């Protein structure tokens, strides 16, 4: 027996391969990176400049800025407690009004509407999102308010006795009901509606066909299928859509300013005239404030910035996490 020797082929020397990009490509990469960096830095700059310019006010007010409800910057008594609370109350009202309608419209578009109506309705939702907010403000003030007052009064008279926060001081005059947080909230719901609807619609539409068909094969009616398959599947879409809508409602300024009658007390009775939000406060005071007053307003803007940033980031994460939302545009 002879030993079998096999020649092992020597490994060829490694060659390092480096791509030498043409000059135009290097310039392109540089240009695109620069554009992306500039765009991204705008967000940071907004926060930074608000912080720098608001610092004198924040420094003077200290933590009291979050607990003081009055807004008298020139005598040093100012804080966002009441406007922040008003912002949250009004945004919540907008959300409560808009959400059921948004879910229903989204379900109608993705599940029930005939195909031609479907694409028309999608266009209408997009158009509704594009109508300037000042137009909604005018509509809310001149069209909606006189009609909503009757509803406010009915609630205040018939439900207000049992539920104290729905009552008003003097239900006999219309001026008790005008410019209330409720009317602002309903107007804002018009702006929340298209945003929430379009997110929910996209998530609902991604329900797997096989699971729908399985439900039908088990004898479900369409509604039973929607409850059993589409709604559980789209839950994160509903939450995400609601939070994006909330972000819009929190930051809306002009239409709130047109309708609301500003007060610096807590909004405890949403049907009663008078409330305020951070954004409306900024619109109201920006042109007539002293230098220090402007710094105080910028501080309020900084709080709004942080607040909406948190809400929208959480919303984005929720939508992105959903099994369905992988390809969803928000």
């Amino acid at each position, binding site marked *: 027996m002879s030993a079998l020797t096999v020649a092992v082929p020597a490994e060829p020397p490694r060659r390092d391969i480096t791509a030498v990009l043409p000059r135009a490509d290097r310039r392109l990469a540089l240009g695109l990176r620069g554009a992306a960096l500039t765009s991204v830095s705008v967000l940071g700059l907004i926060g930074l400049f608000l912080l720098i310019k608001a610092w004198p006010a924040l420094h003077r007010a200290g933590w009291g800025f979050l607990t003081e409800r009055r807004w008298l910057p020139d005598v040093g008594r100012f804080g966002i407690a009441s406007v922040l609370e008003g912002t949250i109350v009004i945004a919540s009202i907008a959300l409560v009004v808009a959400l059921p309608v948004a879910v229903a419209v989204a379900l109608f578009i993705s599940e029930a509407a005939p195909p031609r109506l479907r694409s028309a309705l999608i266009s209408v939702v997009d158009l509704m999102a594009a109508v300037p907010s000042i137009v909604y403000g005018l509509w809310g003030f001149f069209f909606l308010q006189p009609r909503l007052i009757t509803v406010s009064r009915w609630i205040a008279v018939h439900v207000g006795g049992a539920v104290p926060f729905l009552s008003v001081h003097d239900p006999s005059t219309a001026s008790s009901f005008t410019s209330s947080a409720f009317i602002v909230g309903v107007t804002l719901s018009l702006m929340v509606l298209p945003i929430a609807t379009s997110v929910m619609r996209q998530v609902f539409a991604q329900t797997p066909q096989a699971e729908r068909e399985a439900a039908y094969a088990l004898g479900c009616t369409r509604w039973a299928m929607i409850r059993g398959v589409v709604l559980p599947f789209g839950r994160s879409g509903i939450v995400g859509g609601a939070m994006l809508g909330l972000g819009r409602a929190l930051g809306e300024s002009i239409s709130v300013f047109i309708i609301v009658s500003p007060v610096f007390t807590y909004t405890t009775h949403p049907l009663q005239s008078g409330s305020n939000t951070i954004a409306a406060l900024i619109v109201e005071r920006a042109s007539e404030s002293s230098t220090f007053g402007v710094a105080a307003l910028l501080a309020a803007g900084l709080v709004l910035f942080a607040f909406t940033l948190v809400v929208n*980031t959480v919303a984005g994460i929720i939508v992105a996490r959903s099994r369905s939302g992988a390809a969803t545009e928000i």
Partner: protein
Amino acid sequence: MTAVTVAAPVAPRRVRTRPPLTQLAAPALASAVAAIAAVDVLFRWFLPLTGSLGFWLSAYAAFLLVYAGVVALTTGSREAMKDRVATVVLASAGLLMLTVVVLVVGFTAVRGWGALRHAGFFVHTTAETGPQDPLKSGGIYAAAVGTLEQVLIATLVSVPLALGTALYLSETDGRARKAVRIVVETMTAIPSILAGLFIFAIVILTFGFQRSGLGAALALSVEMLPVVARASDVVLRLVPSGLREASYALGASRWETVKRVVLPTARAGLVTAVLLGIARVVGETAPVLLVAGFTSELNYNPTSGPQLSLPLFVFTYVKFPIDNAITRAFGAAFTLVVIVLVLFVIARVLGNRQPGQRWLRRVR
């Protein structure tokens, strides 16, 4: 030979899983009529709820009850009843939304008609017109000029940046792509008043410039940048990667591929993205309000002096407690709605083309 008879194939009977529309609509219609009639009677005599909105709310509740009863009686099935009622609720939500859009646009047009019907409304300014003067005098010319210039500058500033960002996201393998996409998405949600405050803090407080149209344009471009970037990113991702790979296989560099393949393929979609960005900012009041300053005079120069724009015009005139001023505000507001509508229709028409359609046609 015996004749073989072959049975002509019978078209399979179409199975309807759901009754035809007429059969669905008739009971709904009948229920609606019954509900409206009943509520009308109740309203006249009993119910304390007043006003048209209350009437329609009650009528709708009554309609749902009557319809549920009718379906339950005719089909005898609980499940069928729930299904039909749910369908009607969903459809009425769609109808409600449609009604609101029509009412918003229609109401704005009707209230603004007094100003809009004078042709002078579009060619005069309100420099020498008081709020109480008749609607024949004065108009939105100065505001329209301001809006046009500001939106144009905002487009020039934001579109190159937005397009570059979108190309960075879709055409490079940069490591920061995920982070950039998240930040851009977050930016679309920044309240518009903060865009105004930001430019106010930089341009006016830090650098000490006066209020001007240019500042307003910058505020608008902060608002427009993320909108256009996101829409373009979506469009660019729709460009088939086969086209890119074919271009690379032919030895084209990345720059050549972007210039000759990617951008021309996505052209229609990119135009749509820009139009939607313009539609978004053209009616923005909050950013303009803080930075532009107010004047009723015509100012062609965006770099110096306050400059009026359409949203600012609406905002200013609606605050007067005078009918003529409010009518002017509505006239300007309707002009804004029409601008948005036109931009939107153009964007839809362009957007309905498939990406690459034009390119493929040329090759064939």
